[in-house]
């Protein structure tokens, strides 16, 4: 139905994740891939789910050169959590969804921090959790953009 727009949005999210930014801006970079994954997990839960999340995480691992399985595990768990709650969250007002996204991002960051802590100590500062805030902040825009994308594809088929 709209597999093209799904694929396209994931590609864009991956690009945004590796877009070169000045060091100051990297701290604030939202977790684009997680945001798009959450959206599709809520919108078409029968097609996008845990395995998709895992696969995308694996691609992100390769892209970042990090430990293979680190982001894969985290994103699979995020997809699973969204899968449990999607019926409830789908009817939330957007600001409440933003809060849920914030919690998801905290879980995601905690999982990767945990793995990285075990694999070889790295300093965790307050700035490390910043992407959770920015992810929650950009969620409404991502939500609206993807919803438009989906609607357009659906309606153009119907015409």
């Amino acid at each position: 139905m709209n597999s093209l727009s799904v694929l396209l949005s994931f590609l864009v999210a991956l690009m945004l994740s590796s877009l070169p930014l000045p060091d100051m801006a990297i701290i604030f970079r939202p977790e684009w891939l997680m945001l798009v994954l959450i959206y599709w997990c809520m919108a078409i839960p029968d097609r996008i789910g845990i395995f998709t999340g895992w696969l995308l995480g694996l691609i992100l691992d390769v892209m970042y050169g990090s430990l293979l399985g680190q982001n894969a595990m985290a994103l699979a768990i995020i997809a699973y959590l969204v899968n449990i709650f999607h019926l409830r969250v789908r009817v939330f007002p957007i600001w409440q969804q933003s809060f849920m996204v914030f919690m998801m991002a905290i879980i995601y960051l905690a999982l990767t921090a945990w793995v990285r802590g075990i694999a070889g100590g790295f300093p965790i500062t307050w700035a490390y959790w910043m992407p959770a805030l920015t992810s929650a902040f950009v969620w409404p825009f991502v939500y609206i953009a993807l919803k438009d994308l989906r609607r357009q594809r659906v309606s153009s088929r119907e015409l």
Partner: protein
Amino acid sequence: MRGLLRRMGGATPATVRVIVLVALSVAMMLIDHRTQQLEKLRNILQTVVYPIMFVSTIPRDLIQGLTGSMERSENLQSDNESLRQENLLLRSRLEKLHSLEADNRRLKRLLGQSEQIAERVLLAELVEVSLEPYTQKISLNKGSRDGVYVGQPVINGDGVIGQVVHTSQFQSTVTLLTDPSSAVPVMVMRNGLRGVLFGTGVRNRLAMPYLTADADILIGDLLISSGMGGRFPTGYPVATVTDVKQQPSDEFLTINTLPVTQLDHGREVLLIWPEVVRTRKDEVLQELVDE
């Protein structure tokens, strides 16, 4: 199958799936952390990722290309002039180095030491992508196709930068000196005192632990690669000592050092292939007799 799973303890397929995938991820992380077994899988996936990374560098390259061309017309002449002068200076210094190198080689052969032939080098360019924040890694545009291998030393004009950790066909990932997983065997140039430099995860700081209080090390000392461990060739500058402290409670010194190269500046780096040729002692003696 699904019905069977549901009957067994009432676990939904989603739960089963996430448990299986998490277990798989943990297994992969363990293998990847301890061994090199997963490099093949990484290589295959890297070819999928390559176009994505390539496209994400386009905007930056475009902007840089535009500003670069504007700069070019203005500064070309002055750049050219200063480069010519520098070239002249370096060439005169190189003349002197040639004779010193010959001297050095003769002396080393007298001692029967392994001889270091001039290394093969390859210029690589940084791929301007941002990797995981809080890790000190960079991406290069040369890969296994060009002979890059895991563990290969990477330098620039000033000194050591780091070493290659992953390679794929067209790209490779380099761990910088400051990454927490990095360690380089070094020695103090002044007196040959050996130690190991560890990355701290903090930019522009390397730690040199395990030196006792009586170690002869001073602020400002230059640390060069010692060649121990066989990864880094001998004699490349790595860092300078910025801070030597002794806590009364600690029997080791706390030593902080600053990398000699600006790790986050510059677009070009050099990959080197150290080549060691061992000369046998009796061969050298024979040669001496002949002389």
